[in-house]
């Protein structure tokens, strides 16, 4: 059994920032990451960031990741375990993980869960054919491993990820046949959409996938148009000869560990699915268990980083560390978050968070009991 002060689960932007912020306060941190490397989703983001200016908006995601990883490595009080998947959190405070085939038990005094999110899928006949991939998967294959997913792609979903991955496919020399989106509007930022259109890729709104065709792998896709009530219009079918279909219809929090330990969960559509109920310091309904990043509600990397820093600070304070500038730091993080979530773009997130936050009065007294 390994005794640690703080266990951070997941080494994406949220987890890295949580570890840094707690280490800065003097806490001994163990950071467990399932992959062989740190960085989470940032490692595949080769484009300039769409976050705010304050959080390095004009830096590429990969580079932000490198900066954070370097910082983590510089702290002597952060121990990193790579290739280490956390399997379970138990009532007696024990956390189990698997590293290189070994089963390891850890006993932390506090935990920050930052496991991120996973890509949703879409229901249509033959959606299980090889060649039908998550957009993030294609991004990983191309940008991390330098492998093309195929020759011709149909992108399903015109949100930011769908648009960005389409652009990156073209950069890698892969043809994008079309982008379809069921909604009448393009969900992603217009700067990205215009860039795509300039490259000659049609963005078909009010369109969805009817079916995928292929024997051993995808050979073609049939799309059709939707009417005002989102119903398919018979006769509007178009067959596209594509060998790859990218599904980019959103992410959902990877919340298994939260369920398992018994955090109070609530379904909040605006945040991507079931999310943990938390207070404004990111503590869940369980004492000493904090969350940050996409697992707390699908947003973007900038807010994941700020949430990570805040959760790390809250955990340090929970562990009894006296931090001189605690109140200032906390106020700064909260201000950064509200900046990131301001304006029309942040409206959905704000609505979602209103449903996921428990007010201070309710949390303080009998917390975790």
């Amino acid at each position, binding site marked *: 059994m390994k005794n640690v002060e703080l266990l951070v689960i997941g080494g994406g932007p949220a987890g890295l920032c949580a570890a840094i912020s707690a280490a800065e306060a003097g806490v001994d941190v163990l950071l467990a990451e399932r992959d062989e490397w740190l960085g989470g989703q940032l490692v595949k983001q080769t484009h300039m960031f769409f976050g705010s200016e304050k959080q390095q908006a004009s830096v590429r995601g990969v580079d932000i990741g490198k900066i954070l990883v370097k910082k983590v490595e510089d702290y002597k009080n952060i121990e990193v375990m790579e290739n280490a998947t956390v399997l379970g959190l138990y009532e007696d405070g024990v956390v189990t993980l698997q590293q290189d085939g070994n089963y390891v038990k850890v006993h932390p005094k506090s935990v920050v869960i930052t496991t991120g999110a996973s890509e949703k899928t879409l229901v249509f006949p033959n959606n299980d054919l090889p060649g039908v*991939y998550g957009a993030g*998967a294609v991004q990983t294959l*191309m940008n991390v491993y330098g492998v093309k997913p*195929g020759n011709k792609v149909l992108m399903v979903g015109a949100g930011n990820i769908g648009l960005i991955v389409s652009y990156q496919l073209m950069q890698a020399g892969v043809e994008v046949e079309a982008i379809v989106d069921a909604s009448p509007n393009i969900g992603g930022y217009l700067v990205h959409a215009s860039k795509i259109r300039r490259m000659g890729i049609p963005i078909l709104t009010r369109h969805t996938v009817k079916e995928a065709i292929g024997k051993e792998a995808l050979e073609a896709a049939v799309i059709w148009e939707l009417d005002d009530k989102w119903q398919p219009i018979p006769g509007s079918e178009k067959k596209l000869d594509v060998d790859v279909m990218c599904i980019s219809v959103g992410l959902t929090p990877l919340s298994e560990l939260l369920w398992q330990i018994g955090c109070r969960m609530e379904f909040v559509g605006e945040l991507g699915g079931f999310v943990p109920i938390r207070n404004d310091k990111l503590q869940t309904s369980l004492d000493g268990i904090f969350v940050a990043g996409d697992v707390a509600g699908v947003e973007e990397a900038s807010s994941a980083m700020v949430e990570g820093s805040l959760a790390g600070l809250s955990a340090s304070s929970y562990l009894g560390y006296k931090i001189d500038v605690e109140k200032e730091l906390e106020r700064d993080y909260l201000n950064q978050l509200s900046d990131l979530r301001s304006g029309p773009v942040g409206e959905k997130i704000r609505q979602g968070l209103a449903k996921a936050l428990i007010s201070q009065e309710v949390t303080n007294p009998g917390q975790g009991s």
Partner: protein
Amino acid sequence: MRIEEHPVLEFKRGKKVYFTYDGEKLEGYEGETIAAALHAAGVKVLSHSDRNRPRGFYCAIGNCSSCFMEVNGVSNVKVCIEPLREDMDVKTQKGKGKIV
């Protein structure tokens, strides 16, 4: 299909390694996953489900369990995150695989 030229990225591939896929000798690079090496070699079908439907990867980050293969005799290995090593024996998995 590997990307040879890219406007933004430079791919620093590791040492070349050889592995077998259903008995056939294939090559890949150290530092990449089994799934990436297979895809580069044109292999998309990684397993056949219980109902004999072909399966490929879906998420490529270890979340969805769509990419199970038999690696060095062990079934249900997520090849989208399993690093490729010299001399690995990779096989298409049938159904739920063997539980040893």
